[in-house]
């Protein structure tokens, strides 16, 4: 394992290059965006920048800005592609509010971020300078119009001769601008040049050495230009990491977690934003004795996973909302036949095709209640990249022990977010055992439900004496089709009871902040970092606010009612739709609420309020902070 090189974070050789007059701005955290047209490589630039910052000891959270199309028309507002990288002196748990520095390859990409209110009003903007004098009059006009819109806000716009500079090294600047931009950031944030070179080498592994050399030349060119022309540098102090650390995105973490859980088969159909997990599995799963099967459709992917699970080790299928809908019947079969199965839903905006590349938390109720008939099962939501890894081990174990379906709800924010976390200490005990194919003891029944717990031992094909037929029809302990009232009632009770048994084994969620107070925020999934940052701001201002974050959505963790009772008001914060009180026609009776809010109201009978938004981007801590202030119960402390 490589050591955490240069974690001290200062590269003296670099400092010598910088213009002596460059002012160093010391700050605890800073947010950078790199935006371009699709295909210009802004994402690669952002990813390398984020990874090197992490390696040098900054806290990092990286988010992709992705259009839905592969190559939308250039220089369009909707076509912007890139990255936001938020770095800090300590851990960074979310993408923050607004960017401090933007590297933009054209003014339309910049404009798109401006219009989304994604930039600080004093942001520094480094922008390609060819557009103002472009031969095409329309382009010149578009530039001028954009500059008029951006004027007077307070942005500091610095025009950079990106293309002109790149042409001194390469013939086609379109393919190298991103490395020049990386050079600008390398100088600006005082990155270790060697580490950046290493990361470029890793990114272009397998490509010819010429490509590496050209990229390094462009990088150095960008750094030199910045050193000669910029009058400030950013210093976000770095700390040596006390423990071994890994950095990856949530989809990679899910794929590695599945391997750590000892799973041997994943079946999928391509769907954004889940697919990158499959790309990673396709690359490495076979080395672990695993198979990634790309099925002919979403339904088949669920069927292949369920068939594999039935025949041996628990398998999983990975999808997004539309795929969840298509797989529904198989999910019911998993529950009815008590065949373990893990389904990962990397949520995106919906309904229907919705917002394929953008985050949303709108599948919660579909994941829990979407199956026709009564189909009790388990739903888990990781809240961090690290949890994306570990949740797969938990999901596999629960699916196996409880012979049930486990749905894991990730989302586009976790899927593409990159964050360092403590390196997992892999334990062989996490892994599924080799299937036990010993003869079945006389009298063992395929659904020999323990009347107290509903649990029963699974029989696997290959076990002599165990021959029985799985069926999705109502069946008795022996697996025989049985339509009688007695059997249907009893078997439904057994399938439900075991979920209650699981619930009794869980712990109450910890409260972030004081155990009692004015307002309790309840969240789930990827919003944890932003919620806790917002709560911390409100608490620092003297407000009595705490938060609770739920990992188990079905069954709900115990103790919620007790926790809720200690707060004057309880409110969920979610990335899904809810009606605004006070909007036309909306009453307390007909108001459609956030999905977790609905669930909590039903299960606790507490009047849980909600604040939800569907901006197609992660919630910003600043927006949550405002919502907290607006929803604090009036009338002073309890």
């Amino acid at each position, binding site marked *: *394992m*490589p050591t*955490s090189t240069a974690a001290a974070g200062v590269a003296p050789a670099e400092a010598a290059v910088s213009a002596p007059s460059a002012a160093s701005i010391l700050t605890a955290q800073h947010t950078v965006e790199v935006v371009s047209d699709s295909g210009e490589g802004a994402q690669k630039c952002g990813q390398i920048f984020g990874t090197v910052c992490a390696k040098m000891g900054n806290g990092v959270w990286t988010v992709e800005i992705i259009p839905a199309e592969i190559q939308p028309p250039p220089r369009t507002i909707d076509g912007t592609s890139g990255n936001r990288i938020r770095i800090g002196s300590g851990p960074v748990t979310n993408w923050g509010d607004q960017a401090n520095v933007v590297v933009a390859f054209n003014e339309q990409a910049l404009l798109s971020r401006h219009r989304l209110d994604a930039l600080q009003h004093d942001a520094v903007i480094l922008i390609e300078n060819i557009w103002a004098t472009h031969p095409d009059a329309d382009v010149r006009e578009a530039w001028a119009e954009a500059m008029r819109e951006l004027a007077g806000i307070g942005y500091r716009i610095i025009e950079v001769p990106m293309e002109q500079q790149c042409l001194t090294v390469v013939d086609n600047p379109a393919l190298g601008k991103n490395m020049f931009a990386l050079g600008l950031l390398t100088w600006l944030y005082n990155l270790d040049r060697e580490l950046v070179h290493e990361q470029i080498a890793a990114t272009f592994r397998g490509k010819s050495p010429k490509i590496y050399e050209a990229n390094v030349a462009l990088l150095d060119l960008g750094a030199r230009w910045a050193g000669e022309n910029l009058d400030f540098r950013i210093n976000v102090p770095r700390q040596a*990491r006390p423990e*071994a*650390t*890994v*950095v*990856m995105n949530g989809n*990679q973490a899910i794929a*590695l977690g599945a*391997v*750590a859980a*000892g799973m041997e*088969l994943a079946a999928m159909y391509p769907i954004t934003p889940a697919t990158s997990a499959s790309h990673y599995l396709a690359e490495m799963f*076979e080395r*672990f*004795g695993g*198979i990634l*099967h790309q*099925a*002919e*459709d979403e*339904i*088949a*992917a*669920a*069927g*292949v*996973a*369920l*068939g*594999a*699970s*039935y*025949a*041996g*080790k628990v*398998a999983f299928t990975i999808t997004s909302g539309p795929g969840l809908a298509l797989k529904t*019947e*198989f999910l019911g*079969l998993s529950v009815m*036949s008590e065949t373990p199965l893990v389904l990962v839903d990397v949520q995106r905006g919906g309904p229907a095709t919705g917002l394929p590349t953008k985050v949303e938390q709108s599948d919660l109720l579909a994941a829990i209640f979407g199956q026709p008939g009564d189909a009790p099962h388990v739903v888990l939501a990781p809240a961090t990249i690290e949890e994306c890894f570990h949740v797969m081990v938990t999901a596999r174990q629960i699916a196996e022990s409880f012979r049930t379906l486990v749905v894991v709800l990730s989302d586009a924010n976790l899927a593409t977010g990159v964050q*360092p976390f403590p*390196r997992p200490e*892999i*334990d*062989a005990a996490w*892994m599924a055992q080799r299937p036990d194919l010993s003869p079945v003891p006389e009298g063992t029944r395929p659904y020999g439900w323990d009347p107290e717990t509903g649990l029963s031992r699974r029989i696997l*094909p*290959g*076990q*002599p*004496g165990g*021959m*029985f*037929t*799985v069926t*999705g029809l109502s069946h008795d302990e022996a697996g*025989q089709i049985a339509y009688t009232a007695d059997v249907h009632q009893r078997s439904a009770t057994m399938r439900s009871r075991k979920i209650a048994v699981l619930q009794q084994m869980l712990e109450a969620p910890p409260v972030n902040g004081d155990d009692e107070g004015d307002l309790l925020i309840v969240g789930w999934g990827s919003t944890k970092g932003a919620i806790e940052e917002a709560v911390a701001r409100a608490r620092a201002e003297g407000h009595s606010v705490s938060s609770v974050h739920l990992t188990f959505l079905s069954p709900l963790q115990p103790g919620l009612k007790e926790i809720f009772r200690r707060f004057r008001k309880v409110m969920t914060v979610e990335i899904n739709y809810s009606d605004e009180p006070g909007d036309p026609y909306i009453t307390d009776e007909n108001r459609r609420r956030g999905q977790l809010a609905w669930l909590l109201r039903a299960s606790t009978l507490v009047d849980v309020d909600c604040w939800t938004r569907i901006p197609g981007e992660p919630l910003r801590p600043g927006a949550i902070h405002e919502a907290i202030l607006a929803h604090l119960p009036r009338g002073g402390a309890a």
Partner: protein
Amino acid sequence: MTAIASLLALAPDDMRELTLADFQKSVPRWCPGCGDHSVLTSMQRLLSDEGLAPEKTVFVSGIGCSSRFPHYVKTYGFHGLHGRALPVATGIKLHRPDLAVFVVMGDGDCVSIGAGHWMHATRYNMNMVALLLDNNVYGLTKNQTSPTTPQGHRTLTQPRGSYLPAMNPIAQTLAVSNASFVAQTAEWLPPHLFATLKAAYQHPGFSFVRILQRCPKFTDGLFSEFIERPDEVQLLEHDNGVVVPALSRTFKNRIEHDPGDLDAARRLAEADGVARLGVFYRDPSRPTYGDIRAVPARSAQERVALLNEELDRHAI
């Protein structure tokens, strides 16, 4: 490439003498006269003749009358969802190539709601036997038109007669890239049925067998022309296909058809007039997805070591 036959032949020291009774489970609840009974009997005979270990054999089915099949065979069984037997079977075989997998589907299952899986399973060419028990009608839901219902045949959903020409499952399967075994037989000719099932079982790949069969309730008369007049049936014979000497006295309409000839197979499948029974196509050299995807097993310790190497790639 190993045929499931050789994989599953019992080890020499396993002296179990398997008989028909070893593969019989509960009493079938199919209607008297239903073609399913005949298929079940032939299959049980195949299992005992070939000495398949019951615990290493899985029957996977969808939903419909014929999909009750696994409940009546004393092996492992998976009676799943309508139309979705093939993906389940694919998952079982991918994860456990040591199991012999048989898939039993009706015409609704295979060529209607699950038609996509039928095309793709044919192309995957996993080593399994897939039976289409085709009675040309939806029986369990009580008489609705299926894709193989002959044009003009009346049902409750198309009471003025089926609107469209029937689908031709043999021709469709032969059209799929990487098809490796396509045969047709009939439930009313047990010797031919048995010989065809046996050839299917012994083929190393996805063996698709369409079995023409009567539904005594809703399509009783559909095949009477073939049953009463053997000349309306044409047997495709070849040493690489099936030859049933017991039938040669009754069935004079026999032709030599080399199952290695795909063009001839497609012509025969499209030709009208008679019911053709036999192996249309067989190519044991076709790549099977299961073999291609086979990966060496890893112990937990090996995985831990490999995972640590993989984490090194993400280490900072």
